[in-house]
């Protein structure tokens, strides 16, 4: 269970949100600039809220009142960046092993081999990220976080860097892979309603740094569509 209740103020923007997310995929849906990525960054410890509290599976990650702010490297949050952030100077295998530093060599070998197989990239272990396709990079990035057994998974626009033709296929594979290999809280940031519909169990609707609505995806998306259509009937999405 992930409990987030935070505030962060900028000169022209204020993030002020509260939500809870249980196991399964929870989508954070909203237009760009509504604070979705910022929320993930605060949970991961990349950014720091001005006020509030973040709690993951009973462990406090951040609490302004108690002056608690666990360092990013101790939070054990799995994070997938929009452009994957694979280390360009390391091979696929070295990228996978990056979060396993300190573990016995044999264990690292076994784990990386197992994950290479899981993401169907055996034979690619000595390639560099620049030599991979978008979908392959995404799989390596996902495996790189999952291999560390994170306590939650944060996905920042995981499909925006892929070209539309391959997107749908990748999404299905991604979803089944996720169901097979991760059973904790997954937060997925997206501005695409279809993506949210396809991938999420629950949806949190963002607007201007506030939570507009949250709940099971069917309810939230139905309202979201109605609202969007009412505001701008010409822009009914495909």
């Amino acid at each position: 269970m992930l409990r987030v209740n935070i505030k962060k103020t900028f000169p022209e923007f204020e993030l002020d949100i509260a939500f809870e997310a249980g196991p399964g995929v929870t989508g954070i849906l909203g237009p760009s600039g509504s604070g979705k990525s910022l929320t993930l960054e605060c949970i991961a410890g990349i950014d720091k809220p001005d006020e509030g509290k973040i709690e993951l599976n009973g462990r406090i990650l951040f609490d302004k009142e108690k002056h608690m702010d666990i360092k990013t490297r101790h939070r054990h949050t799995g994070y997938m960046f929009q452009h994957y952030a694979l280390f360009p100077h390391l091979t696929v295998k070295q990228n996978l092993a990056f979060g396993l530093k300190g573990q016995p060599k044999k264990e690292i070998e076994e784990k990386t081999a197992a994950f290479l197989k899981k993401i169907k990239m055996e034979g690619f272990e000595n390639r560099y990220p620049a030599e991979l396709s978008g979908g392959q990079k995404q799989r390596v990035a996902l495996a790189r976080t999952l291999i560390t057994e994170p306590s939650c998974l944060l996905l920042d626009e995981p499909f925006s860097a892929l070209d539309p033709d391959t997107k749908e296929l990748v999404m299905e594979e991604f979803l089944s892979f996720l169901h097979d290999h991760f059973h904790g809280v997954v937060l997925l940031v997206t501005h695409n309603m279809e993506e949210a519909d396809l991938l999420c169990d629950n949806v949190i609707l963002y607007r201007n740094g506030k939570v507009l609505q949250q709940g099971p995806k069917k309810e939230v998306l139905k309202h979201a569509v109605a609202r969007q259509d009412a505001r701008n009937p010409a822009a009914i999405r495909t």
Partner: protein
Amino acid sequence: MDVADALLTLPIVLPPTVLGYYLLVILGRQSVLGRFLEQQFGVTIVFTQTGAVIAAMCVSIPFFIQSARTAFAGIDESLLHAARLLGRTEWNIFFSVMIPLSWRGLTSGVMLAFARALGDFGATLMVAGSIPGKTETMSIAIYNCLMNGDERTAGLLVAIMTFLSLAVLYGIKRMEKKMGRGGSRHASRKHQKNISGI
């Protein structure tokens, strides 16, 4: 931070003789630091090879710092975040991510600094003098040879310096070209080989 920044960049714009003057004031035998070093460790800096090295370092290191800073600033920040999220410490990230991704910039910085140190005249002359066979650097020797009418030696030294400078320039250009080619992927040398080997 701004004060430190200005102090580190100042030697780039300051005339070398002025820099040499400051070094004399700070490290001279009458200064607090100079006296301390001499009494405690028996080390004198002025008019010694140590002094020549310190003077050359002071005029050249800012060039390295500038290149290093540019190289580090070019690293995609999400890579550093990714490394933190994967449990690495800041020190570890410095050595395993930052240095490998910016080594070309660092290397060209080293070469630039080397060339500047090699060519220094003013600061070295102020701090180390030009004691023949001891603190007479090549740049100073060229001047002295000309003054003494030894044009053959001067010419030889000029040729050596020109060759070294051209070599450094060529080296830097090569680095920059590779950086450009590596571009967004920051390809390592090993990687370049891989690509061309396909």
